[in-house]
C-alpha cells in the first residue's frame, strides 16, 4: 500500500492556527543530505524542485525528524488542545 493511502486511513484534528513543527528554510537550502525525507515515516518532508517542502498536517507526531535533522533546522513542539493524529488502535 502506498504511503499516501496509508495516511488516508488516519484521523486527524488539524490545528489550522499552529504548526507544531517548523523548519528553517535557510538551513534546508544548503542541506547536504535531506535525511528528513528518508526518515519521516509519514512523508511530511519532500523535495519539490530541489526545495524542501514540509507539511505538518500529515504528521503522526512520532518524533523522528527532530533527531533525523542533524543541522538544527527542525523545531519540534507537542501539539496542543488534543489536535493532531488520533489513532483507533495504536
Amino acid at each position, binding site marked *: 500500500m502506498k504511503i499516501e493511502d*496509508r495516511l488516508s486511513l488516519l484521523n486527524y484534528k488539524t490545528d489550522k492556527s499552529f504548526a507544531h513543527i517548523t523548519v528553517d528554510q535557510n538551513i534546508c537550502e544548503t542541506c547536504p543530505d535531506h535525511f528528513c525525507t528518508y526518515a519521516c515515516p509519514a512523508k511530511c518532508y519532500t523535495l519539490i524542485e530541489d526545495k524542501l517542502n514540509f507539511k505538518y498536517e500529515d504528521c503522526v507526531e512520532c518524533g523522528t525528524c527532530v*533527531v533525523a535533522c542533524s543541522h538544527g533546522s527542525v523545531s*519540534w513542539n507537542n501539539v496542543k488542545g*488534543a489536535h493532531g*493524529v488520533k*489513532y483507533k*488502535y495504536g
Partner: protein
Amino acid sequence: MSEFDVIVVGAGPAGSSAAIRLASKKMNVLLVEKSDPPGTKNVSGGVLWGHELDGVIPDWEKTAPVERYVKAKTVGFLTEESSINIDFRSRKFDENRSGYTVLRVKLDQWLAKKAVESGAMLVNGVTVDRLAMKDGKVVGVEQDGDTITADTVILSEGANPRVAIQSGIREPLKDHDVAIGVKEVIKLPEEKINERFNLRGKEGFAGEYVLGFLKGGVEAGGFLYTNKESLSLGAVISMKHLRANGNTRSFDIIEEFNSHPSIAPLIEGGKIDEYSAHMVQEGGYSSIPKLFGDGYMITGDAAGFSFSNGLVLQGMNYAIQSGITAADTFIDLKEKGNFSNSAMSLYQEKLQKTFVMQDMTNFKGIENVTWGNLTHQHLPGILENVMLEIFMENGMPKRHMYKILMDAMKKQNVSSSRMISESFKMIRRL
C-alpha cells in the same frame, strides 16, 4: 503550599501506573495527558511482557483489555529468498503466561480510567509546555502561561521527551538513542488467524524477525503479533544505519517486510486498517539521563528505559515498573516533606533493586552487538547457505557440517575468528 502532591506528565503505562499507585495511597495527584482520550497518540508492537501491573491492578490479567496471551514465540532470520525460524512453544510458557498482545488505545484508556477510579485527577487534551522552576527547583508545570504547582513532578512523557529537553534537564536525543518504529494493523477474521498461526481461543503468536534482506547496510527488526481479530505488523529501524545508508525511506521498509515470501501468506486477504509510527528508545544504558533532581523524577521511555535491539522489543514493562518505583519514592519522601535532589536520589537507589536498572546495567552495550552487520546481514546469509546445502538434494555427496559452515561464512566474508569473537561478546552480554 503546592496545589498537588504530584503532577504526572503523560498517561502512558509509566504515568498511569505512577498515578494509580500514588492515588491509592491517598496522595493528591494530577495526571496530565495531551491526547483525548488517553492512548490515542501512542504506539506499541505490542506485547506487554511480565507481571508488573500486579503491583497496581492485582486482577489485571482478568480485567485488562488484552488481545491474546503469547502461546507461540518465533525468532526469525529473513533473507531475500528464505526464512530460518526458531519456533518456541512450551507447556511451561502456557502455565506462566508472560506476555499479552495489546492495542494501546484500549490499554491506555483503561489504565487512565483505573487512575481516576483510584482517586487521581485526570485532565486530557492538555499539553504541558515545560517545568515550572523556582530557585533552580521544579515547583510544578507550565501550561499555556499558567503554572500548576506540586511537591514533585513525575515526567512520563514518552520517547520524545520535549518537556525534559525544553526544561534543560535532559540532553536532546541522538541517533544512538533511538530507532524509528512503523506499524500497521491488519484486519483478519479470528478463524483465519487461528488457522494460519495454529492457535486456539485466546492463544496468540509473537514473532520477531531480523530483516536480513534489506540492502545497503540498513538494519531493522520486524515484528508480527496476533490480536483477536487483527495482526500487528511493523518494523523498528535503526536511525544510525538508515542515515549511513542515506537512500532508503523508512515507510518503504514496512512494505518490503509485509511482502516477504514468508510473511505475505500470513497476512493474505487481510485489510490494512491503520498505519502508525513512533520513535523507539533503544540506546540502552548509555542513553539514560540523570533520573531525578530537586522536585522531579523521570520514568519510562522518557528515561530511556527500554530494551530494544532489533531482536527483542520491550518498553511497557519497564515503564510500568519505573512509574511504580517513582510513586513509591514519593510516598517515602512525603513523610519527611523533603523533595530535594539528595532526598530524591532514593528513586535511583530503589530502581537499582528492580529489574529495570538491573537489566540496563547487565545488558550494557548489547545494542552494539545486536545492531551490527553480523546479526543483521551475515548471520541470515550464513544460516540460509547452511540450510540450503543440508536440505536441498542435488545429487552431490554430503559434506560435513563444519565444512558447510566454513564455506557459508566465507561466502559472507566473515572470518571464523570474527564469528567466534562476536558470538562470545553476544553470549557474554546475554
